[in-house]
C-alpha cells in the first residue's frame, strides 16, 4: 500500500519486497504506539478532572448542610457556617464585574471598530493580552500599593478594584473577537442610512455581538469568583459579618485558604463545602457561557 513512500529516507534495497514489507510494518507499529500514547494522554487529563470533581463532591456534600448558608464563621467547634464569606464573595464579584465590564467593552470596541491596524491599537491589544495572563497576585500587590496603603487599611473596595482589573482583559478579548466577526456590509448599511457611527456601534454592532459579550462577562465572573491571591492583600478576609465595603471583607476563596490549612476537622469540612460551592458555580458559569455562545453560531 505504501511501500514506495519514503524514497529519500530509506537507504537500502528498495526493490526487495521483504525489506519493504518489514519497513511498512515498522511504520504502522510506530503509528499505533503513538496513537495509544495519545489516547493515554487524553485519559490522564480526564482522570485528573474526574479526580478533582469526585473528591470535591464527596468531601463537599459530606460537609454541606443548611448551616453553611445560614451561619457566619465561628471558632472551631461552635457550629459556624460560611454565610459572610458567600455574601462577601457575591458583593465583591458583582461589583468587580460591574466596574470592569464597561471599561473592557469600551476597550474591545476601540480595538475592533477604531483601531484594527493602528499602532496604538496594537499596543493596547498586546498590553491587554499580557494583563490577561499576568500573575493575579501582582495585581493584588499593586492595589495594595495604590489603595490599601494610602487609604489606611484593607477594604472591600480594594478587593473590588483588584477583581475589576482582572475582569477587564477577559471582556476586552471576547468583545473584540465578537465585534470582528460582524460583517462589514452591516456597518455600511447602517452608515448608509445616515446614522452616526456611535449609534451604529451601540445599537447595531453591540446588539449583534451581545451573546458573545455576555459570554465574556460570564467567563469573567467565573474567573474572579475563584480568585484568591489578589484578595489576600486587598480585602484581607473577615471572620465576622460585614457588608461594609470600607472594612476588610470575607470571601469564599479566602475562607477556604484560611480553613483548609487549619488543624480543625470542622473548619476543614467547611473549606470543602466552600470549595464545592465555588467549583460548581465556576463550572456552571463556564458551561453556561459555552451554551450562550453556541446558540449564536
Amino acid at each position: 500500500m505504501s511501500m514506495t513512500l519514503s524514497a529519500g529516507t530509506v537507504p537500502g534495497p528498495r526493490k526487495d519486497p521483504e525489506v519493504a514489507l518489514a519497513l511498512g510494518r515498522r511504520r504502522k507499529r510506530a503509528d499505533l504506539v503513538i496513537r495509544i500514547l495519545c489516547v493515554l494522554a487524553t485519559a490522564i487529563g480526564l482522570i485528573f478532572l474526574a479526580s478533582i470533581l469526585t473528591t470535591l463532591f464527596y468531601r463537599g456534600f459530606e460537609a454541606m448542610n443548611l448551616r453553611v448558608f445560614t451561619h457566619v464563621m465561628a471558632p472551631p467547634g461552635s457550629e459556624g457556617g460560611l454565610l459572610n464569606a458567600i455574601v462577601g464573595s457575591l458583593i465583591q464579584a458583582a461589583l468587580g464585574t460591574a466596574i470592569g465590564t464597561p471599561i473592557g467593552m469600551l476597550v474591545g470596541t476601540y480595538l475592533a471598530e477604531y483601531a484594527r491596524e493602528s499602532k496604538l491599537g496594537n499596543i493596547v491589544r498586546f498590553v491587554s493580552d499580557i494583563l490577561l495572563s499576568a500573575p493575579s497576585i501582582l495585581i493584588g500587590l499593586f492595589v495594595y500599593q495604590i489603595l490599601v496603603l494610602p487609604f489606611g487599611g484593607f477594604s472591600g473596595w480594594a478587593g473590588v478594584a483588584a477583581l475589576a482589573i482582572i475582569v477587564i482583559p477577559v471582556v476586552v478579548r471576547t468583545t473584540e473577537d465578537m465585534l470582528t466577526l460582524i460583517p462589514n456590509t452591516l456597518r455600511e448599511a447602517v452608515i448608509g442610512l445616515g446614522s452616526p457611527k456611535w449609534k451604529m456601534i451601540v445599537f447595531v454592532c453591540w446588539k449583534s455581538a451581545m451573546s458573545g459579550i455576555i459570554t465574556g462577562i460570564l467567563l469573567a465572573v467565573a474567573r474572579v469568583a475563584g480568585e484568591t491571591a489578589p484578595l489576600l492583600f486587598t480585602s484581607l478576609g473577615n471572620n465576622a459579618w460585614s457588608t461594609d465595603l470600607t472594612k476588610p471583607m470575607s470571601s469564599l476563596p479566602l475562607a477556604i485558604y484560611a480553613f483548609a490549612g487549619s488543624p480543625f476537622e470542622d473548619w476543614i469540612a467547611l473549606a470543602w463545602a466552600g470549595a464545592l460551592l465555588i467549583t460548581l458555580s465556576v463550572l456552571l458559569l463556564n458551561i453556561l457561557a459555552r451554551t450562550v455562545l453556541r446558540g449564536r453560531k
Partner: protein
Amino acid sequence: MSQAATASPPAPARTARGAGNLGDIIFEWACRGAGIFVLLLLGAIIVELFIAGLPAFRAFGIGFIWSTEWDPVQEVFGAGVSIYGTVVTAVLAILLAVPVAFGIAFYLTELAPVWLRRPVGTAVELLAAVPSIIYGMWGFFVIVPAFATYIQPTLIDTLGELPLVGFLFQGAPFGTGIFTASFILAIMILPFIAATMRDVFEQVPPVYKESAYGLGATTWEVMRGVVIPYTRVSVVGGIMLGLGRALGETMAVTFVIGNANRITGSLFGPGNTIASLVALEFGESETGSLKLASLLALGFILFVLSFIVLATSRYLLRSRLKA
C-alpha cells in the same frame, strides 16, 4: 475582510443638528480613553512595584537577586531561593505537561471520532476553569498523601539509587516539596497548552495533510512531517504561554511546596516560589518594613520574568492565533 474594515466606513454627511457628530467624538474618545487606561494600568503596575521594592534594591544592591539569605531577624533578605524555586517548578511543570498536552491536542485534532471531539475538548478546557485554590486543596489532601505513601518512596528506592542523578530523588518522602508543586502546576497548565496546540494544529491547511496521506503516510508521519513543522513557532508560543502561567501561580503552589527558604538539592525537598513566599509572608510584614519592600521587590522581579515570557509567547503566536 479586515482590509475592508480598516478603511473605516464613510463619515455620515453633516446633519443640520450635528448631534451625531458630537456623539461620535465623545464615543470615540471614550473608547480610546479606555484603551489608554489599560495601557497606563500595566505601566502603573510595573512602576508601582518597582518603586515599592526600591528600598530593598537600595539596601542589598543587585546582589538581592541571587542572595539566598532570608533572615527576618537580621533583616537580611535575598531573592535567590524563591527565584530558584519559581524557575525550577515552572520548567519541571513544562517538562511534565508538554508531552501530555501534545498527546491531547494530537488526539483531538487527528485521532478522536468527530462526535467525541467537542465533549473531550470541553472537559479538558473545564480543567482550566477550576480555580487555583481548588487545585491547592485537592493537591494538599489528595496528591500529597498519595505522593508520600506510594510515589515518592518508589522513586526514592529506584531512581534515587542511580548514579549522577540519584541525588535529585533522595530524601524523606514528605509528599510536599518542589516536585509535588511542579506536578500540580503541570496539571493546571496542561489545558492551556493543549488548547493552544489544538487551535494551531487545526489551522494547517487540509490540502497539505491530504497530500501526505495520499503518499501513504501514517497519521503519525503526517503529524511529524507536516503538522509539526508547519506549526512549530506557534507550538513554542503555546508552551511559553503555559510557562508564563506556571511562573505566577500562587495558591496551588503555596499549599504543597513545603515553604522553606533554602535550596535543597533533592526534588522532593521543600522550597518556595516568589508567589508562594509573597502570599505567605505578606501578612506578617509591617508596613514600611524592609521585609515588605523585599516582598514587593520580589513581585517586581516576578512581573519582569512573566512579562518577558508572555511577551515572547504573544510574539510567537501573533500570526496564527488572531482570533
